[in-house]
């Protein structure tokens, strides 16, 4: 049956007044029969999004010490030997304020921004190193290496201890200094912003 994705559910939900409208509208739209169904393995290979709960994190682990060597080998060319002062964004906050302003790339939250300090979740750092670094060779790092590099950056910025082990369980638990540093604005279709109001 092509026309209704699930006619039975459509009927049941249709009967549940006040709840059903949205879902009924969705369930009733015709199926065009276009597109192919990816296999679970294909989806898994594409899915590089790591949410704050870390559900998608792969097995593996790493420590700051392991990360130090990797960082020297794979990251310092762009991010600087000390994690700052290179052409790419600063990753490690310098102990003393550098002489000349550091490059403000992106996200350009402000001079002196460091992802390990500003990001509300450690998963965002893992996700980004995994999907985007080393720039130009994205996707070459193994999970263990990403755990180790994340541990190294968090340790060097004073967020975790030197011998903390990061893995599927511990990474989402890391207490980030800016954990509560964001508000998600409410949004509804057709709703005005709270300011400015009608004159």
């Amino acid at each position: 049956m092509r026309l209704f994705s699930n006619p039975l559910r459509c009927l049941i939900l249709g009967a549940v007044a006040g709840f059903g409208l949205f879902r009924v509208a969705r369930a009733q739209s015709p199926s065009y029969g276009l597109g192919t169904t990816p296999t679970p393995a294909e989806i898994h290979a594409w899915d590089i999004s790591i949410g704050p709960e870390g559900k998608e994190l792969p097995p593996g682990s790493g420590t700051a010490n392991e990360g130090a060597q990797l960082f020297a080998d794979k990251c310092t060319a762009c991010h600087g030997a000390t994690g700052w002062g290179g052409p790419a964004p600063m990753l490690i906050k310098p102990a003393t304020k550098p002489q000349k302003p550091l490059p403000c790339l992106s996200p350009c939250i402000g001079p002196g921004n460091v992802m390990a300090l500003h990001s509300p979740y450690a998963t965002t750092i893992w996700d980004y190193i995994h999907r985007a670094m080393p720039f130009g060779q994205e996707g070459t790092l193994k999970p263990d290496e990403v755990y180790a590099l994340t541990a190294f950056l968090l340790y060097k910025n004073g967020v975790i201890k030197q011998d903390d082990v990061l893995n599927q369980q511990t990474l989402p638990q890391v207490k980030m200094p800016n954990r509560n540093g964001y508000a998600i604005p409410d949004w509804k279709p057709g709703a005005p912003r709270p300011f400015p109001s009608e004159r």
Partner: protein
Amino acid sequence: MGPKKPNRRNFLKSGAVAAAAGAVQVTTGQTPDAGTKSLKELIAYGERSHYVTSIREPVDARPSPDQFGLTFHVTTPLQDSVGIITPSSLHFIGTHRGSIVPDIDPKQHRLLIHGMVDRPLEFTMDELKRFPSVSRVHFIECQGNHSKAEDKTVQDTHGLTSCSEWTGVLLSLLLNQVGVQKGAAWVVCEGAEEVKGAGSIRLSKAMDDCLVAYGQNGEPVRPQQGFPLRLLVPGFEGIYNTKWLRRIKVVDRYYMTYNDYGHISKDEEIAALTLQWGPKSVITFPSGGQQLPGHGTYQITGLAWSGGGAVRRVEISTDGGQTWKDAEIRGPVYPKAHTRFGMNWRWEGEECVLQSRCTDELGQVQPSRAELAKFFKVSVDYYKTHGTQGTDNTIQPWRVASDGSVHNAIV
């Protein structure tokens, strides 16, 4: 706010920079030699007259391309615009997510929709074009579009907004095809460029008016705008309009991607002024850096838009905001689109300050900086060292000096 502005001339002089920034002509004063182009080339894909020299420019303090060859932000020359559509070649670029414009073969490109759905599906470009299409005129504006006292022209102050007719498939239709499951609340949309930029959008917005677009102004979306496929999130900050769209994951919560993280605010009142653009307008003539040749009749003209819907009214003040007159709407009015306005004006050589104010269909009124400062209980001087709270939709004043020169009057 931010580092000092580098010498923009130097950027433009560098041939490499100009070439990589995308078909930018170096305006040295010489006439480009039309003879170097074969007739076939000139006919096959029409070019504008070589007398027309309006170009995009890199945003201050963000050299583009940078030393990695990355494009950051490049502004639209709004001062030269007519009507409401931005030529695709002049559409602003905002790509601060580590991307050299990717070279994507549309035959190889796929869009995967998965996550909390009943039937994950993968679409080819050809398949997407077999769905009913819609064409809609919408602006896209980068969060970084804010006016600073150092800015000279309207390209500097407002050049990170552009408007196109976009053609594609409604995202709601595609989400209906996969069957969104109960408990789903957000979608994470991801691009295919080097760093795979991704952003989280509420499902309510995704089901409302978002568009998976393959067309821009009557032809395929330009590579710098996301060829072969991009997301349109009408009215929202530019960054959510994922370019080179390859994957949509339906999830139950905000995902705090790298792009999301770059746009968060802690203060709830400030955060509320992000995401969806408020009502905004700017006079494009006479605007900063332009010169009135003498006394007499002119048309004050400009653009108005709002992330909240259609523009309902535009007012113009020629006396620094003491009195306001309704401007004429001169062109089509679409929701969440640039809208052209204008007004007859006689200039007798007096020094004056021109500004425009937009009201949208929700009744939202564009604020002045003084009003914004009052709301946030700061002095107007605060904006000398800080950006405005939230996305900047404040009123832009231009000062016309008695010699006819026009200047940015933001303090």
